[in-house]
């Protein structure tokens, strides 16, 4: 080893953040938003009294939770072009870039995990809340949107955010489809300049600082929410 070369980091950090980190953060925010929306719908389906609906949602969630994320990334990377062609009625698979493929993958995958959190959140609301909603003349959707879900969200906020920190870390797995996320950008520089030690150590430090900072914030939030409750 020829000494730690800070120069390579100095030369490349603008690229790493402008190309890589912006990809990682955009992907995280998109997948979080999509995952929570879709996950909440899945949770409502799982708790539905209509048997086929709850069975279908349960099967989806259990399937996603039993196979590795890497395999799911591969699945969607090849599947999305076919689904796109089917929706757009094109004869051949359409071209989908690594970013949109990853965005769809993580939304669909994280939805299963957010679903379980939201399901616990919904179940933590006393049944009386739902009954009083109905007694006031609200329908199912109104009761959910105005009474149950707002409370479930607040109760589950720390867990939802912790899941999002995990999502932020897991987006680095898009490396397997050669996307240029933060890790992918660093890997490109590392292999070009043969500076693997410096680049991967730098990546680890940046991920650590972001994740640790965010989880400290979540802990603080948890305390505040606990007091309000």
């Amino acid at each position: 080893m020829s000494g730690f070369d800070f120069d390579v980091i100095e030369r490349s950090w603008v690229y790493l953040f402008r190309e890589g980190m912006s990809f990682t953060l955009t992907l995280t925010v998109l997948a979080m938003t999509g995952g929570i929306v879709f996950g909440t719908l899945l949770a409502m389906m799982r708790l539905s009294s209509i048997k086929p609906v709850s069975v279908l949602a349960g099967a989806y969630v259990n399937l996603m939770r039993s196979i590795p994320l890497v395999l799911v990334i591969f699945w969607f990377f090849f599947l999305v072009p076919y689904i796109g062609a089917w929706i757009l009625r094109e004869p051949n698979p359409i071209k989908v870039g690594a970013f949109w493929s990853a965005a769809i993958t993580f939304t669909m995958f994280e939805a299963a995990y957010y679903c379980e959190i939201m399901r616990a959140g919904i179940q933590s609301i006393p049944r009386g809340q739902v009954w009083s909603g109905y007694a006031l003349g609200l329908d199912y959707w109104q009761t959910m949107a105005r009474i149950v879900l707002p409370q479930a969200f607040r109760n589950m906020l720390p867990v939802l955010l912790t899941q999002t920190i995990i999502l932020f870390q897991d987006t680095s797995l898009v490396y397997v489809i050669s996307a240029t996320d933060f890790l992918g950008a660093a890997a490109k520089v590392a292999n070009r300049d043969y500076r693997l030690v410096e680049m991967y150590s730098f990546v680890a430090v940046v991920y650590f600082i972001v994740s640790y900072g965010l989880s400290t914030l979540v802990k603080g939030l948890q305390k505040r929410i606990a007091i309000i409750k």
Partner: protein
Amino acid sequence: MNYHWHWQVLLETEPGGTGTYLHYLIVGLGWTLATALAAWVMALAIGAIVGTLRTTPLKWVVRLGDLYVEIFRNVPLIVQMFLWFFVLPELMPKGLGDWMKQMPPPWGSYVPAVVCLGIFTSVRVAEQVRAGINSLPSGQRMAGIATGLSEAQTYRYVILPQSFRIILPPLTSEFMNVIKNSSVALTIGLLELTGRARSMQEFSFRVFEAFTAATVIYLLTNLVVVLAMRALERKVRVPGLIAVGDAPQAGH
């Protein structure tokens, strides 16, 4: 959808000539399990020690345990893989580093993968162990001390036997996680199940047959693990104690 299934591909010979593609995938499952089991043993050992130390009254020991947990929890698994595989050999003395780099093919990726997964998972085990110990009524510890046991004996005979039985259900899901997470080892060249499904797809161009087969194998493996652990849980359950880990947790 416009895809022509061709399931017979599973019975065709893979290019390496070791047998059919199906056999090729099953060997991959073998590597997945070999990686996961070795990492699991390591994770249980380290996790039990770190988790227990974090409940002791010694302030600096607790701090040290917290530091260990925070470091390995806040760096993505794939980055940790790269650190063990690419970075560590460079930081070692030259002889040792070269020896690590020149390990013959499966072991050169297998050993770093096991160490990486073992430590990554040990953090999660440590959290469960600590939660299990803290969930016991404090009277248990006091009663241990009051009957004349030392601190170490209290842990050995009173606290640990109970808490390990309590945390078995969350440990089951950690074991399933380590099986799934072992797929990340494909990025450092270990041909486990997902890696083999990927290379089968590259050799045969049968994308969905390869991934469907891998998915089905993962599902069957999960089923076996769940059934086995449920039997074990029924056997060691502590009557009258509710399992921790019922609270929803973030995971992947």
